[in-house]
């Protein structure tokens, strides 16, 4: 998965936890994200990958696993 390492880097930064969940594990169930950390995660992804995430994409379902985030970012390229 192309972006997994960089996604994890952002996750670790916003959560303060060094957990490494499976690519299809829920980031909420794994304890890396909650509703407020999700905001920081989305902002962190924008900064790390140089993309703008529009308001129409602001749904937790789009960002709740590493594989979904990776697919989302790939589609933005």
């Amino acid at each position, binding site marked *: 998965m192309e972006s997994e390492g960089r996604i994890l880097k952002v996750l670790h930064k916003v959560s303060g936890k060094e957990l490494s969940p499976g690519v299809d594990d829920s980031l909420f169930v794994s304890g890396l994200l909650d*509703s*407020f950390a*999700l*905001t920081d995660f989305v902002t962190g992804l924008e900064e790390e990958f140089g993309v703008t995430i529009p308001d*129409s994409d*602001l*749904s*937790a379902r789009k960002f709740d696993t590493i594989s979904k985030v990776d697919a989302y970012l790939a589609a933005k390229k």
Partner: protein
Amino acid sequence: MAFLRAFGSWLPPRRVSNSELAPKVDATPEWILEVSGIEERRYAADADTVAGIGLLAAQNCLEKAALTASELGMILVASGSSDRFCPGPASQIAAALGLASTPALDIPVSSAGSLIGLSLAAKLAPTAGRVLVVGAEIMSRRVSLTPEGKNTAILFGDGAGAALVDADTGFVRIADSCLFTDGASAEALFLQDGHFHMDGSAVILHASRKMPRAINELLTRNQLVASQVETFLLHQANLNLIARVAAALKTPQEKFFTNIARYGNTSSASLLIAADEWHSGQNTALAGPLVFSAFGSGLNWGALLALPL
């Protein structure tokens, strides 16, 4: 021109602590405080109505403004939890104030309704004269006090607030406002069939990005920056959300007046209840800009700028 002349509020006397609420929703008092910043909220009595508590806040506001209802040119009432959808509480409040023909309009937008009311009142005041804005909510009847309803039940409380916008006089001048609607995301927050539904993560995502953006847009077009603002008055949604907005604006959280710890999230009433408490505690005239902001169902959000005289 339009000025903020007075605020008013009314809170039900019944206090519901986290300790009382926690067992009903399968949570702990400490968790509720951690995720919301709320220590207790108020619940209306069975006999209370949205119009009834709105009337009490309206009367409190008129008393502080030293005005009678007959001197009002218009009434705007925000509520997402009104007992009856159409007509909503505005006409009932007007009638209870003894008004037979003064226009009284409803704004059925939870959480952001009072901000919309203030913004519209500022635009209408030059022709309407004095516009009374009321926000009244009995949210405790719209949430489920069960483990399944935990995420909303822990947040909401009941109460009412009011503001008097005057075309001629007040303690601050309303300089500008901006309102926005994103209907494509309306499913994140809505009230239907008597029950409140909220996708908390989506709401926080939207609110924590949209509110700072609205505030910055408003400030920029008035040649101001966030650091120049003396006080921010926000919809009291969640203390952690207010902290996010403060951080996004790179502004100390101390500049944000909060009373959510004692009243919880009273939806569209919260902005005006907070404004009333803030103004009542002011011992000196405002020296810098005052910014209001709210976010709610619709999705609707925006900001309003008031400047010292």
